[in-house]
């Protein structure tokens, strides 16, 4: 896609000894992680383990206290300017657990707003691209509808299309299926898998272990704000190295 000059394998995200506190609560503890272009990383762990905090630090939706974070060539931190944050966010797409579509805009307007408002595309071009992407997530027939008229799964696919309209180099998914009915989880996961197969670099927080096994190049297991294990899916699911990884996988199997 865009920025074809960035070769596969180059580093797109570097997180180094990141620490974050909410008041006196130590939410992220010395988190270190790098992601290369083309790589698919799935972050898992029990709730409250800091997965969402971490992914929200990557595009600066949340700040952190110590450590360094460099995403798409820009260093984020306390000294990052508003302009730097905007630049990074335009290169990183994000999909939220609660979809967060704009309810006062149609699906198509949700998709075209950002490319036009940021000067990336002119309105007619943005509409053409938005319709192409809505076609890809199989929503082109819903383009004129409003988010409240769509099912949860359709809303989440629309949110994916909205993020893709900014031609991101990296996609972040923050528990994209946790707010969905079990029946509609699959249609959203299929969309993400398709995106992964097309070579999109992604970091995904997910509880869907089948999905993780299918798309991930690496699994990151977190607990209590700490990265406890980083492994390939084969290693992680066959022989988790950390006691708590074992316990976590066990708890998922029992449920």
């Amino acid at each position, binding site marked *: 896609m865009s920025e074809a000059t960035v070769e596969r394998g180059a580093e797109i995200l570097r997180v180094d000894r990141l620490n974050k506190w909410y008041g006196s609560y130590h939410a992220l503890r010395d988190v270190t992680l790098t992601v290369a272009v083309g790589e698919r990383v799935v972050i898992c762990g029990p709730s409250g383990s800091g997965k969402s905090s971490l992914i929200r630090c990557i*595009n600066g*939706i949340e700040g952190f206290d110590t450590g360094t974070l460099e995403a798409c060539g820009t260093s984020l931190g306390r000294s990052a300017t*508003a302009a730097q*944050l*905007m*630049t*990074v*966010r*335009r*290169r*990183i*797409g*994000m999909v*939220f657990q*609660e979809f*967060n*579509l*704009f*309810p*006062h805009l149609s699906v198509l307007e949700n998709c075209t*707003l*950002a490319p036009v*408002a*940021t000067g990336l595309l002119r309105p007619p071009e943005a509409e053409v691209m938005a319709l192409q992407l809505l076609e890809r997530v199989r929503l082109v027939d819903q383009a004129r509808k*409003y*988010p*409240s*008229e769509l099912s949860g799964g359709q809303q989440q696919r629309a*949110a994916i299309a*909205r*993020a893709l309209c*900014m031609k991101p180099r990296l996609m972040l998914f923050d528990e994209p299926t946790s707010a969905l009915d079990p029946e509609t989880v699959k249609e959203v996961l299929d969309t993400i898998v398709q995106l992964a197969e097309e070579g999109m670099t992604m970091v995904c927080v997910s509880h869907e272990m089948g999905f993780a096994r299918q798309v991930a190049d690496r699994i990151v297991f977190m607990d209590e704000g700490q990265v406890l294990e980083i492994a390939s899916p084969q290693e992680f699911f066959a022989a988790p190295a950390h006691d708590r990884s074992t316990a976590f996988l066990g708890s998922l199997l029992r449920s």
Partner: protein
Amino acid sequence: MRYVASARIEAAAPPRSSVSRIERIRALFFSSPASTLATVLLALACATLAAQLFTWGIRDAVFSTARAPQTCRVAGVGACWAVIGEKLRLILFGTYPYAEQWRPAVAMLSLLAMYVVSAQPRFWNRRLPLAWAVTLAAFALLMFGGVLGLSYVPDDRWGGLPVTLILATLGLVAGFALAIPLALVRHSPGGGIAKALVVAYIELARSVPLLAVLFLASVMIPLFLPQGMDVSKLLRVIIAFALFTAAYLAEVVRSGLMAVPVGQRQAAAALGLSPFVVTTRIVLPQALTAVLPALVNVFIAFFKATSIVVVVGIFDLMTAAKRAAADAQWEGFGTEIYLFVAAVYFVFCYAMSWYSARLQAARDPARRA
């Protein structure tokens, strides 16, 4: 115990609505002896009042201005609507020079036309503010005159409905325009001097009666202005009005800002939108839609509150009505004049209320069919 369904239950049409209209009326008005008694008594009272109103207001009323007010003074005659016909131009235009009253009429009609145009979403584009600027300039040109062969009429000779309308329009529009930045600053996270000033301003403005603010604007401010600098009383009162309404509207807008989920801001920011775009395209549209009924509530309240400018000597619709009722020749027909003025206020206020309900329905996606 085990249960396994043995047959498929086919879909069937829903049962007919179990309550007929007659049953519903019975449940509402005649559910018990006490309810029946109350219904009968109230119905009788309403019928009596309506009959009397009809007799006074229509059957025995005098409509023709010919030979009035003598015809109105005959015993047994009802309402004297002739006084409205006689005093209409005084009520509508006050003491504006009689021969020039086509000017306030045209000015007022162009304002009304702009209300109708602005109410329609298909005209909501960049040309609308321009059209408003042109209309307001035309309004000032017509009312003041002094150019194009129109005689000059100072604003202390303006009166009646155009004054009420321009006071309400400029006061509310300017107040609303000011309320949005005030609300945004007050809603912003963190502290800072700007926020402290805004909070102080809003709380102060809300703690002072409108009457005091109007006296301040009309009597005190000129004392502080340097010699030779003269701002007309009407303009001072409009500014005072705008500053006062801004404080109330700011709090309504702020409650709308609080109603927008934090995820909306996050999603907009995550797309790389600038804070300005996030605010104007994502947050404000949702916030204002959420508080539309409350906004219109304030608009209606302040439209009616414009009538208290009578105490500082602005000649608005209410002042004009008082003046009309004070005519010795037509003494005793104040009721008719005030009823007429009440009807004018009602038309404007009800139009606002009706329009907000319609707009709310159109902009609320959940209610869109």
